[in-house]
């Protein structure tokens, strides 16, 4: 069973690969529910559920599980936000954003590992799960931002705005859970590490971003236009990637996988 559940992982990877291949070739399904990606999400959900049961903890510990949950959240956020015909163009970049973390996870050791005592708490699943859900919405924001910058369209603009707002909301709730957990585990809701600092950067960045739409457009630099807002929405994914992977791979932080 321990190895068998990985079949679902490989099948979901194949489905995501097929979706990205079709999208890049210009072939679009008639609706998101009839897409390989939708089938991939179902397989992926089954994989994560079985792995949760097998390991006895939320499958969000370590780089492999983090990447595959990241991919899953990107797909779910896309399915929630890119349902209309106007926003379906976002699936071209988004299918790649779903595929890449899953493909990255495929290269990593997939063995089930027990949790360290500090991670053995319900706050672990809520903190990490909500944070990754936020990351998923921010990935959808990149795809929708690209669509708006290339083709315009009010539907893409509104959906990108929702991606920032929903992502910010999930990430904020994740930070609250993380603070409560840290208070019980380490003795303080806040510690000075690069990971914590970058988490606050993500929070401030998207908090600021959700305010941009209320600034009236005007002449001169930077103009405060919708294009600026969409550019910032797309760039936000870079901030997220630096927080998720950059800090762990480039900077020394005790709060890492």
């Amino acid at each position, binding site marked *: 069973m321990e190895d068998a559940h990985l079949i679902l992982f490989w099948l979901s990877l194949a489905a995501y690969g097929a979706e990205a291949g079709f999208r890049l070739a210009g072939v679009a399904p008639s609706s998101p529910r009839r897409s390989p990606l939708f089938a991939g999400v179902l397989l992926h959900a089954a994989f994560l559920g079985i792995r949760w049961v097998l390991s006895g903890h939320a499958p969000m510990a370590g780089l492999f599980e983090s990447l595959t949950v990241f991919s899953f959240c990107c797909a779910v956020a896309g399915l929630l936000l890119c349902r209309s015909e106007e926003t379906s163009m976002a699936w071209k970049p988004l299918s790649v954003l779903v595929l890449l973390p899953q493909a990255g996870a495929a290269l990593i050791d997939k063995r089930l590992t027990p949790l360290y005592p500090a991670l053995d708490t319900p706050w672990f699943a809520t903190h990490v799960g909500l944070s990754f859900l936020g990351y998923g919405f921010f990935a959808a924001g990149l795809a929708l931002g690209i669509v708006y910058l290339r083709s315009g369209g009010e539907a893409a603009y509104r959906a990108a705005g929702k991606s920032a707002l929903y992502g910010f909301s999930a990430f904020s709730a994740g930070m*609250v859970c993380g*603070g409560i957990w840290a208070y019980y585990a380490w003795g303080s809701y806040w510690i000075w590490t*690069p990971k914590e*600092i970058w988490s606050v*950067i993500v929070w401030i960045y998207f908090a600021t971003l959700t305010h941009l739409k209320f600034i009236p457009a005007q002449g001169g630099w930077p103009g405060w236009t919708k294009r600026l807002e969409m550019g910032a929405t797309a760039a936000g994914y870079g901030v997220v990637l630096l927080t998720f992977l950059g800090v762990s791979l480039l*900077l020394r932080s005790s709060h890492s996988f």
Partner: protein
Amino acid sequence: MALWRFLTSLKTCAWAGLVFCVAGAAGSVAMGRFPELFADMDAQVFAGWFARKGLVDPAPTLWLYGLLSCTGLLVVNAACCTFERLVQIFRGTVTMRRLLPHVMHLAFLGVVLSHLVSAVYGDRIPGVAIPQGGFAPVGGTGWVMRLDRFDAVMAPEGYPKDFSATVTLFRDRTPVARGVVRTNEPLFHEGYGIYIKNFGTSPWGAPYAVFDANRDPGATAILVASLLFSAANLLYLFPARRNDA
């Protein structure tokens, strides 16, 4: 008037947010490049650390000045914005829809100000090492802690699956608190949390455990403000409530 416009402006919020992000990014790199400066940031409350190191060697800590200045500006900006809008709202029709963003602003102010209280009036007592059956003073609290018993469950691979310590706190030889401390389950007494951080075996074979004792007087207020923020945020997600701020 120009100052009020600046303090209530969304553009001020946008620029302060941007500078905050740049300062924070610089800081995350600086922390790795100057470990002799930043390694002990969590060994005491922030105000104490900043008074000792932030003012002595300003160049590598320049990012912190940026971070603190932007945080201050964002707090004032949110407070002024909310004050201005609340006056307008209460002169007109008060609806939950119009209030929610300002509830989030007030919760944000609550988090920052409560953190300021913790950063100034909190306490950090790291590294209280006690052998099983032994005693050790707990910083300047006036308590002496005894490690009554230490238990660890080790996995076959050699890492700890679970560990716990039964401790008793004494003041003037009188027991004032007793409990079991394990990871994620500290012992709280008079505003302090006792946390188990490490364990091992002494050269003469007795197990020992290492504890931190921390006090964060703003923690409860931060929790309340954070929950208030999350609740307002959740209500704000309903489509009908999202049209104006």
